[in-house]
């Protein structure tokens, strides 16, 4: 205080005192309130993870996260993270759980833990109109170009199963779809719902094989060893389903897909 000229000392004292008092009270308040649940997801996957016109998180997974938060009595914070960064974020404690339409695979299970699955889906094909590809079996041939998105199960399947075809790995779904539309790729391997949506948007330049050639189920990602949270999440999922929560989400966000898939005997999600 001796370095500060007299007129300012009282000001510094006042401000300093206020800051100290506020942090005291603030800490006390925070200790009483519940710790927020940080949920990681990539908000570029409508209608599950997306943003509303005002830029706020929206979609099926966001609703699910909010319902989970309510069940746990904790406020929910959505962290928008690129898909292939979700597991690293979980492991480094940047988020507490991942609800991002993530498939529970044995490989991923080596790194993180999963809840019980909450949705059944599978890998499907978005095919360029001019391509000779008819089914997944046609893919592994020389000269075939298969687009996948970085970090997805589509990429894993391609890396494991395709020896002769060229695999194009793209950062975003949009780029991968463009490659197919512009005839630079034969096929984009992605989940059946997105393949459906993209085919509907570009009916004349694409074909779709929606029956999954590999079935997958989505689950909530959790840290290994975080057993308490895992138990709580499983309890929540069971209660939510019993309560018809998933039915309501399906009707709200996926009505069109539901109808189409039913009409074509393609297994639907929930």
């Amino acid at each position: 205080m001796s370095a500060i000229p007299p007129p300012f000392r009282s000001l510094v004292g006042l401000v300093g005192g206020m800051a100290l008092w506020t942090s005291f009270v603030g800490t006390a308040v925070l200790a009483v309130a519940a710790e927020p649940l940080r949920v990681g997801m990539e908000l570029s996957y409508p209608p599950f993870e997306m943003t509303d016109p005002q830029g706020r998180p929206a979609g099926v997974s966001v609703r699910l996260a909010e319902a989970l938060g309510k069940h746990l009595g904790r406020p929910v914070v959505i962290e928008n993270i690129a898909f292939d960064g979700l597991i690293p974020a979980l492991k480094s404690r940047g988020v507490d759980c991942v609800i991002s339409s993530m498939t529970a695979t044995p490989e991923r299970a080596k790194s993180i833990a999963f809840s019980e699955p909450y949705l059944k889906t599978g890998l499907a094909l978005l095919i360029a109109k001019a391509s000779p590809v008819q089914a997944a079996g046609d893919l592994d041939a020389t000269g075939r170009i298969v687009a996948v998105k970085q970090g997805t199960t589509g990429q894993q399947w391609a890396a494991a199963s395709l020896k002769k075809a060229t695999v194009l790995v793209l950062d975003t779904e949009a780029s991968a779809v463009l490659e197919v539309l512009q005839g630079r790729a034969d096929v984009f391997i992605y989940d059946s719902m997105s393949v459906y949506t993209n085919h509907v948007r570009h009916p004349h330049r694409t074909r779709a094989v929606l029956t999954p050639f590999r079935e997958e189920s989505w689950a909530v990602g959790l840290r290994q060893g975080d057993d308490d949270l895992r138990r709580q999440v499983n309890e929540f999922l069971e209660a939510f389903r019993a309560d018809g929560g998933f039915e309501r989400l399906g009707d709200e966000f996926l009505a069109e897909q539901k109808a189409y898939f039913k009409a074509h005997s393609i297994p639907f999600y929930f």
Partner: protein
Amino acid sequence: MPRWLAYLIVLAVLTSAAAAAFASLDMNWNWSIVWEYREAFWRGWWTTLALSLAALVASSLIGIVAALMLRSPIRLVQAAARVYVELIRGTPLLVQLLIGWYVVAAALRIGTDHRYVVGVLVLSLFSGAYMAEIFRGGLDAIPKTQLDSSRAIGLTPWQTLRLVVLPQAVRIVLPSVAGQFVSLVKDSSLLSVISIAEFTFNARNVNSATYSTLESYLPLAAGYLAVTLPLAALSRWLERRFRYEAA
């Protein structure tokens, strides 16, 4: 204190700080994947090197031509060069890559076989705009009096450019050009967005495939340093070799 000792101390402090930070993260690291996937790293590194080298050469040529155009007395020529430089310098490389590949190349019906060529071209045009400004500055720095001297001894304009202007301009711009080269090597990592399998792309693939968190990013940084540090050292050596005070 001898210079090598000073560097050693700084690096030792840095490394221990980093190690402490990593240890506190408690992330059960899996360093074996770095060795397991060494071939992917190796291939990616060479691809980055090759792409950067190609773009280095191309962007230097583009830069010299654009610099001469910027100084041209013909209005149309100067305007074209100015528009090119401002457009390219004013937009991010990422945007240029996406537009270049998904709009321009697609409109020209350029197929996936030419992906790498288009990537290098976009990168070269990007870097070329910065080179143009660097070279222009170098050319402008040659005092007009030297042009007088050249005329007085009877050199043609072409001889003046070749024997008097360019040799001096090159020495003046050398530090900036070397800096631009280093930027180019780092910028080449963006080519991954159009699925060009360079170094960063391969490292990210290894990351996803192995669910490792950040283990592949350290070799990635080391790999880039292996290219950029020698470049910087070479440039400092060249500067020293050609240094003189302007008369």
